[in-house]
């Protein structure tokens, strides 16, 4: 064993393993403090829940060289201005519904989940809803009766009836509107929202 050079010795690599692991863990913890602060709702990247009172766009930002959400003028959800607390409660109901209905095992959220059905990150802005005026009604009808209102685009894949109530559907829509305003570093790239900017 005495012939073993230092760089091949067990002792050297044990110390390396301990030092490298500890160093990387400390870096991750420091970055976690910074990141959690940056993604708390109400930050520049992750908006407060009352963003559902405003029109949300998605445009190419030449300075950052990526697409980014743009928060516009007032466009209250369900024609009601919500306080931050009311908005939070509604988005919370939506998030709970999304989890309890196991949406993520067909869809993706922020690109994570299953690949059987479309990504929901920009669902609020999807051109498939036609226009701003019809969007809320179409979304509600679809969520509460997805079998009758199925649009399979030639795949025959339908969303099953998950027993979503009107109230839960409103929560899900609020959650999806809030989600569309999260700054996702340009994902999805090249996405063109439905026409907005009505009265």
């Amino acid at each position: 064993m005495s012939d073993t050079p230092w760089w091949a010795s067990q002792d050297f690599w044990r110390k390396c393993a301990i030092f490298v692991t500890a160093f990387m863990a400390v870096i991750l913890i420091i970055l976690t403090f910074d990141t959690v602060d940056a993604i708390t709702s109400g930050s520049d990247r992750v908006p407060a829940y009352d963003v559902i009172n405003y029109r949300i766009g998605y445009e190419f930002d030449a300075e950052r060289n990526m697409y980014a959400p743009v928060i516009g003028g007032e466009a209250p959800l369900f024609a009601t201005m919500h306080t931050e607390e009311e908005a939070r409660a509604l988005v919370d109901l939506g998030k709970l519904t999304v989890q309890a209905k196991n949406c993520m095992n067909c869809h993706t959220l922020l690109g994570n989940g299953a690949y059987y059905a479309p990504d929901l990150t920009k669902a609020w802005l999807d051109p498939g809803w036609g226009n701003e005026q019809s969007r809320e009604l179409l979304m509600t009808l679809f969520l509460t009766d997805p079998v009758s209102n199925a649009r399979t685009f030639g795949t025959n894949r339908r969303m099953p009836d998950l027993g979503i109530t009107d109230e839960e559907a409103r929560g899900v829509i609020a959650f999806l509107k809030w989600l569309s305003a999260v700054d996702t570093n340009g994902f999805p790239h090249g996405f063109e929202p439905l026409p907005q900017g009505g009265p």
Partner: protein
Amino acid sequence: MSTAVLDAPIAAARAAASPALSAGQRLALKYFLAAMVLFLAQTAFGLLAGLQFIYPEFLFGVLDFNVNRMVHLNAMIVWMLYGFIGSIYWLVEDEAGTELVGARLANVNFWILTAAVTVVVIVYLVVQVGSGTRASIWLINEGREYIEAPRWADIGIVVCMGVFFYNVAATFMKGRWSGISGTLVLDLIALAGLYLAGMFYTTNLSVDQYWWWWVVHLWVEATWEVLVGCIMAWGLMKTLGARRSIVTTWLYIEVALMFGSGILGLGHHYFWIGTPEYWLALGGFFSALEPIPLVAMVVHAVYDAGRHGFRSNNHPALAWLIAHAFGNFLGAGVWGFMQTLPQINLYTHGTQWSSSHGHLAFFGAYATIVIAFIYIALQKWRGDVWMSAGLPDGGWKWKWSLGLQCVGVMGMTMAMLIAGYEQAFVERAMGGSTWQAYFEGQTQPWFIQAMYWRMAFGVVMTAGMLILFWDLLTIGRNETRPAKDVHAPDEV
């Protein structure tokens, strides 16, 4: 003459032939049996989910895709965990040089954990979804991919892992420590601690996914990898007679490289979830280094096997260990590297490309090594019998099962990779990821054909799995030759 009289000499002969298993080893066999039942469930529900891509009306409204996929994924995670726990119970007494501490508690723990897993799966299948309340998350399904288990089960899992950790750590404390056991125990602390990061609810999806990846990534791309590094090291000593000082040094090298790249490699999941832009650079850089430890593992395994001229006392186990080394490198390393840079991931994220990577990585890195350990355990259980070259039937069952499973998984992986390429072009790059673009991608011939190929190779994989079960039930049963003597490690 009563059957008892007839059975007695057979039982006596068996008892004489088979060396008594220790308490930990008997427990390991239970974990391995449960793991194989869950492997069967994983495959069955994978086949159902795969069929639904081709025939969307199949079981619609009865067992929908989201239920099948959830059971497919959860059965996989749990059978791999059972396999790891079984492997550790198998080696702990040998490695510590003493009897298992708390064997009775460990036994009770197995039954509680298994009962809880059964209840969770029944609720998944029967209740499926709940209303948008916290009660649903506590009792039915948490709705977060990979960690869907309801919160009551989360708490149960943590308690059971605590008992398991106590058994293992206390046994080493009573007996002796080694490089392998020290690394293993520290890794188990990290593994159990990380699970806690997934046990809370928040409205904010960005914060939710930030911590969710701590569990998912830091398990499968860090602590699980180190755990299999530990059991691989022990496995190479036992099947080949590799020297302890060599496998331990390699283990330390792998830990340094694995945690050195994998901890901040976590950043490749933080590109698009709302987290700051610096993760694009950090995640891209460190995750691009993640294949390096996997290369080291291949070099290590091939070096050790070659050094001993592939003369092992357990050919099926060694073959699966080698399959592990290459499968881990290809599935986790190469397939992960393919899409880990943000410039590429912007287009491949959330496509079949990811499921292609997932299938090859989980099979290559984890299924293989658990199967290898089951062969090691069966050899001893059947009386420490011969399992080298010259098996009575030529060893066709283990060879075919290994070959069919590798071909099946590789075929599924390639089919999904083609589908993922097509999605990246049609849906992401050309279509801008609208729903219309998504469905255009799903209806292209390249995608549709890939789903058929995935199904066909899934059937090949299933055939390999069934032959594996047959082999596990029969190998070494009528064998009278003792196991081949490999040079035993003489250092501790």
